[in-house]
């Protein structure tokens, strides 16, 4: 189920599907991902009509509404270029759930299937298509990596983020307790079951902090919104002025470490 295809030829052009979370809440992560791709000699196309993959409605039990939103995205990538998504979760929706979502609509189902094979999660694309080998230009530091459940279990791309960080000579990647456990975000789960979600993110932030890493990086901004949101809340509760657990998208971290 993992998308890595070492034989995928290096494309000259890619589409970038930013995701609604990156567009509105983490635009810097999107810029940094685009910059990294361009630095690799790829022309990056950003269809301006793009909005959201439809996942929030889909996972909440509203497939009709998800389908309406997904229908728009289906039309935005006419050329046969890879579609790079800086999120395992949204990539998983487009790659694995679009064909199911349009199962009853033969025309759109065919479109969804054709799109599905072109969907790449960002770190997977860097490692397995571009064979990206970062040259570390930073100083010694320790980070901890959080991998989203969709990247891990749906996309099977949990090793590519780790590989990219591992290739950075001066970066130590700390190992957190219960690494593969969910951070507790889960879209509307976080507000429908706030006590359970709150307990999960509390444990996740504790485990990340306990590594002593100076920052957390992740390839999924949904998880970051949850993890950093809780860490900042805790800082506020406990009267800390500087963040005890800063964090950023892996694209931002990689770009900074490899600045030329």
């Amino acid at each position: 189920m993992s998308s890595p295809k070492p034989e995928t030829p290096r494309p000259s052009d890619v589409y970038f599907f930013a995701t609604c979370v990156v567009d509105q809440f983490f635009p810097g992560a999107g810029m940094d991902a685009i910059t990294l791709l361009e630095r690799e000699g790829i022309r990056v196309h950003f269809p301006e009509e793009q909005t959201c993959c439809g996942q929030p409605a889909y996972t909440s039990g509203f497939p009709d509404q998800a389908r309406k939103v997904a229908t728009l995205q289906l039309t935005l990538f006419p050329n046969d270029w890879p579609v790079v998504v800086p999120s395992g979760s949204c990539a998983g929706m487009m790659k694995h759930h679009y064909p199911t979502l349009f199962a009853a609509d033969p025309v759109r189902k065919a479109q969804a299937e054709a799109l599905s094979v072109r969907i790449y999660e960002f770190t997977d694309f860097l490692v397995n298509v571009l064979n990206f080998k970062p040259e570390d230009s930073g100083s010694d530091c320790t980070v901890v990596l959080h991998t989203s459940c969709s990247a891990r279990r749906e996309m099977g791309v949990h090793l590519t983020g780790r590989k990219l960080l591992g290739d950075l000579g001066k970066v130590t990647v700390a190992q957190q307790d219960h690494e593969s456990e969910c951070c507790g975000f889960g879209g509307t789960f976080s507000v429908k079951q706030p006590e359970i979600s709150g307990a999960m993110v509390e444990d996740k932030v504790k485990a990340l902090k306990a590594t002593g890493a100076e920052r957390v990086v992740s390839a999924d901004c949904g998880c970051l919104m949850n993890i950093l949101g809780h860490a900042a809340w805790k800082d506020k509760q406990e009267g800390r002025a500087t963040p005890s657990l800063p964090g950023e998208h892996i694209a931002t971290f990689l770009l900074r470490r490899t600045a030329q």
Partner: protein
Amino acid sequence: MNAPQTPHALHFMPSEGFRARSKAVVENPFLRQSFRGAMDFLMSKRAAQFPDAEELESLRTLGERIRQYNLAKLPDLLVQLETNLTRNGIQVHWAETPDEANAIILGICQKHSAKLMVKGKSMVSEEIELNHAAEAAGIGALESDMGEYIVQLAHEKPSHIIMPAIHKTKQEIAQLFADNVPGVDYTDNVDALIQIGRNVLRQKFLEADIGLSGVNFAVAETGTLCLVENEGNGRMCTTAPPVHIAITGIEKIVEKLEHVPPLLSLLTRSATGQNISTYFNMISSPRKPGEKDGPGEVHLVLLDNGRSQAYADEQLRKTLQCIRCGACMNHCPVYTRIGGHAYGTTYPGPIGKIISPHMLGLEATATMATASSLCGACGEVCPVKIPIPELLMRLREESFSEPHANPAMRGQGAGYSRLMTSIWRGWAAVYRSPALYGAVTWLGSRFGWLMPSKQGAWTSVRVPLKPAPKRLRDMLRERG
């Protein structure tokens, strides 16, 4: 087989109070730590059983195929099972509802003027609340599985389908024994506690009029009931008393004996991290002439209780692949946080969320499916590859969609809310239109500072969400 029509008045309270119950557990650091430790232990035991990822994957695929093969033939296999069991001298009874199952079992008890029923571990007997019904009929029902015995002494229900008393500490168990078992002083020595339990139960096996058990696999071609257990109490229940009654759900059938070994291997390795259980019983008939022991009568009660509703739908049918190993619970971050009792159903955890709605209706269980981040840990470890997250999404849809004619599930639309539906419709109207999305997100980026500092449940443990002052599309435009 029709979907059950009347909700049965059982003592389950899933939706009502679920949040309050889970809140009480997550706010108790002692319980949090205790569940975490127990689940870590079970996860490591399972992991040690499957060092080879490829072997695990091929075994899971085999398990899935065996279960799907047998479910596809279920109606025929049920008939074949009944024929072969009857030929072997085992009496077969069909129950559509928990009430019917209880009436059948108590009827057999009354025919034998039974005063005491001794029970091996059976989740289906929990599902029908047999102990409650037996007590009301003046028949003693004694649990003989150590975990179930502890739970019964405490007047509780199991909190886990494999480890019923996983929520109890040994100190609590020691106190329970000291308070309830005559002539026993407080000891929290685990071996001593087990010996106390054994002594009490040993006597009861001899006194009991009826032995009750569950069934792990019923083999249609041979008419054999297979029972997996570790303590030997199951074998005592099925051999010592003069009458043995087995009860199981209609989905537990396999056609061939050769289907059993792969499923058994998956079951014990996934459940308790054992290569094989200490006991594996295969029951094919009552005592035959000339035999010195064994019950004179053996009965099997086959229970539907909503299973045929799940069966009728291609996707929901996958729920019935379950072999009840409990691995989904052990690996579930939600179960680990709240424990089994918070769910309020016989079957807790991920499997409970997908099977309980068929048993209790969506009216009572509509919110259960929302208690998942869809992290996929359950589906990843399921030995028969039930796509649990996919089924949870389906149940959300069944709950929240507007009630319609001929629904696939009893209680469809029970969670329907005009407001919530309007919100998602509004969301879709914005996100399907580039122009509207552009306008709304532009406003968000310009006026993000106006975002309220309290954002409902989100800000109970997080800082408020605030859109960035420039969207990615603005940054790209500026860059040119």
